[in-house]
């Protein structure tokens, strides 16, 4: 299927990029990996006048600095996330998420920026990023602002990005002390799957009491966008990381989510799977902390 015609631009600096966005606004789409954009253009869902390629910009870096946390350039590929030693060490859930997306080919092309900005309800990166309190930097000619990722994604393929802004990097703060994060997707096949449900957890235990000190849980593919399981989180904090507490929290997760029936799975099954994944990931995370 042929793509609709457009002008192709490859700015050499972020200032130039910002200038183009300011000039053309809704008439452009940014090209990072292209794995979503090219398909959408082929299906005539988007017909941009301008496609702006990020390739000449240095936006693919992954750096970690204690105190500052992790900074991931928007154009960092999913593959580079999966292979990053520092992400594996401090933000393991992101490795788990990255390793499951699509296929090896898709992972080599797709980017974290694309995954966040395209905001598919089934996207794999948002749930664990949200549990890790990630923020996105939205840059334009007017300046740059940081927004929590969970406020950035506002709906099914909808974000708070302004027409003249681009997502420059994702920042993830230092991990909480005595914490671990985990992520599990779920699909029919072992590869090339679009999740029917996913759960990310990020929990910290109080080293003195052993109780849950902090907890964030996010669920994917069971709502128009990645959603926090606020009630389930509340049920953990201050309680012991026992089997019963975890089981109860998992049950609350499955009640909190808002799945739909569709071609891939029924709502009741997705709801059930959320509970199973939440339980498994909470157990894994607790085990990782307690060693």
């Amino acid at each position: 299927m042929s793509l609709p015609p457009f002008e192709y631009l490859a700015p050499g600096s972020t200032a130039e990029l910002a200038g183009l966005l300011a000039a053309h606004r809704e008439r452009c789409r940014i090209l990072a990996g292209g794995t979503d954009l090219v398909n959408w253009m082929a299906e005539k869902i988007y017909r941009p006048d301008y496609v702006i390629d990020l390739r000449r910009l240095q936006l693919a870096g992954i750096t970690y600095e204690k105190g500052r946390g992790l900074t991931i350039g928007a154009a960092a590929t999913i593959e580079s996330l999966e292979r990053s030693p520092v992400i594996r060490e401090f933000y393991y859930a992101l490795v788990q998420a990255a390793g499951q997306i699509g296929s090896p080919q898709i992972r080599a092309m797709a980017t974290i920026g694309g995954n966040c900005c395209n905001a598919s309800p089934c996207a794999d990166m948002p749930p664990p990023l949200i549990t890790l309190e990630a923020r996105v930097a939205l840059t334009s000619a007017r300046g740059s602002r940081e927004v929590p990722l969970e406020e950035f994604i506002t709906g099914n393929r909808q974000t708070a990005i302004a027409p003249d802004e681009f997502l420059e990097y994702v920042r993830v703060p230092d991990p909480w002390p005595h914490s671990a994060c985990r992520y599990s997707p779920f699909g029919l096949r072992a590869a090339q799957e679009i999740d029917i449900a996913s759960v990310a957890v990020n929990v910290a235990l109080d080293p003195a009491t052993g109780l849950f000190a902090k907890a964030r849980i996010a669920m994917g593919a069971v709502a128009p966008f990645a959603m926090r399981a606020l009630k389930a989180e509340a049920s953990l904090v201050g309680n012991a990381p026992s089997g019963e507490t975890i089981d109860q929290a998992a049950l609350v997760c499955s009640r909190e989510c808002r799945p739909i029936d569709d071609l891939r799975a029924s709502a009741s099954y997705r709801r059930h799977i959320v509970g199973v994944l939440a339980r498994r990931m909470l157990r894994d995370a607790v085990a990782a902390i307690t060693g």
Partner: protein
Amino acid sequence: MKRVIELTINGSAYDVVISPQDLLIDVLRQKLDLTGTKKGCGQGDCGTCTVLIDGRRALACLTLAIACEGRRILTIEGMEKRGVLHPIQQAFIDKGAVQCGYCTPGMVMSAKALLDENPAPTEHEIKLGISGNLCRCTGYVKIVDAVRDAAGRLQAGADSGKGA
């Protein structure tokens, strides 16, 4: 607005007239007669269009040709050297990994990417490495055998200083 761009494919420079919306898969197959790369779905689901761009895996059906200027593209046609098959290609033949042959170019390219990064993959790593390439003929069994065999040949070649 049509442009002339230069694409570096398999070490050779090609001048080609393209529109910005032209996909690499179509430019390869229709404008450059490099038909070894296949178009099984055009949506990034089957892997038959797998090529390497700057050594990284890419799906030509989801890649704009214009975005490839200044990049080094490797297609199946570039795997052989002066008519001598790459050890991966030879292994595919010897191990019966080729049936209809339609998935084969993409599989070989994925295998190359895998073995370039991981010269001694486990069985699971091989399956993971080709998990983005569908095959309806083989059940993947002999393809996995061929990749394992190729890994061995490449190691042996490297050990003896010959390289591949």
